[in-house]
């Protein structure tokens, strides 16, 4: 029961622009092709046929930050990589979201040392944290669904 059943009879549906725009954004997120470590392997299998991320409208991994809305930080970020990551984030057009995939991206994980950023939220604002070392594809899909729920509730005024 939803839009498609009403469409036939009514011809016109009224809804708020915010709802319509968020619905469009939710179901066509283009993630950036950006893997840093072993989590990237799980990210690849999430996109592959067994788990098939394209069920959620996210099959298109873009190799350019200019064309992506979502950055999945898959792996540990070294201090040398941090400026590069921030640069890529700044190059993404708004609206944009970030998923910290795995323990290393979320909080540094086992790498509590001088070379690794203790959580990618030190350099970019993170929307969803996915736990696991590395997270299974189901966990990443769960994180993406959480992000979709979040986008649906976002006020339109957030990205201005």
């Amino acid at each position: 029961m939803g839009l498609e059943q009403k469409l036939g009879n009514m011809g016109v549906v009224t809804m708020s622009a915010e709802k319509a725009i968020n619905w469009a954004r939710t179901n066509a997120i283009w993630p950036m092709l950006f893997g840093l470590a072993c989590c990237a392997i799980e990210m690849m299998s999430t996109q592959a046929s067994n788990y098939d991320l394209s069920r959620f409208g996210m099959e298109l991994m873009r190799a350019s930050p200019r064309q992506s809305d979502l950055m999945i930080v898959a792996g540990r970020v070294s201090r040398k990589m941090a400026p590069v990551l921030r640069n890529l984030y700044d190059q993404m057009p708004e609206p944009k979201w970030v998923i910290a995939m795995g323990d290393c991206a979320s909080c540094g994980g086992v790498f509590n040392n001088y070379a690794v950023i203790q959580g990618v939220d030190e350099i970019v604002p993170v929307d969803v944290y996915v736990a696991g070392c590395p997270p299974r594809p189901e966990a990443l899909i769960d994180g993406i669904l959480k992000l979709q729920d979040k986008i649906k509730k976002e006020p339109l005024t957030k990205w201005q």
Partner: protein
Amino acid sequence: MEQTVTTANLDATVAALGDAVNDVRVFRDEVTLITTKGRVVEVLTHLRDAQHFDMLTDETCVDYLPKEPRFAILYQLYSTSRNIRVRVKVMLSEYDRSIPTAAGVWIAANWLEREIYDLFGINFENHPDLRRIMMPPGWEGHPLLKENPVKVEEVAFTFNRERVEADKPRAQE
């Protein structure tokens, strides 16, 4: 068939080097020649030319804090023609962290010495290109020195979670 250098077939080497080698240590068939920083290039050149140790497999450093001399520079050599290995060791004082470069003996030493300089702060005299290789160019300090803390962030438990969270840097939009 892997075999290591034994003292028997290294006696001629040690004799040829004379007082350049201070000590020869053998542990589980691994031979270590102890020398000084003033004569290390002479020893390495002799091992390369006269003993056919044509490959520098690794050059590294050990920080023995709080002992003095504090640092050890180690050269792991391999002879492809003889299929044998030997290690050369030089002790360095905490107050004189410099040693002549081996980049003129094996070109492989160039990047290995840059790594030691980056992580331990040892100065290699007459090195062709002594700058950081691992850490970002603006990095302060040398991270593998023992005076550095092992962990950079305090581990959060229930009793200190609020303080650790408050100290953590956060990104802006």
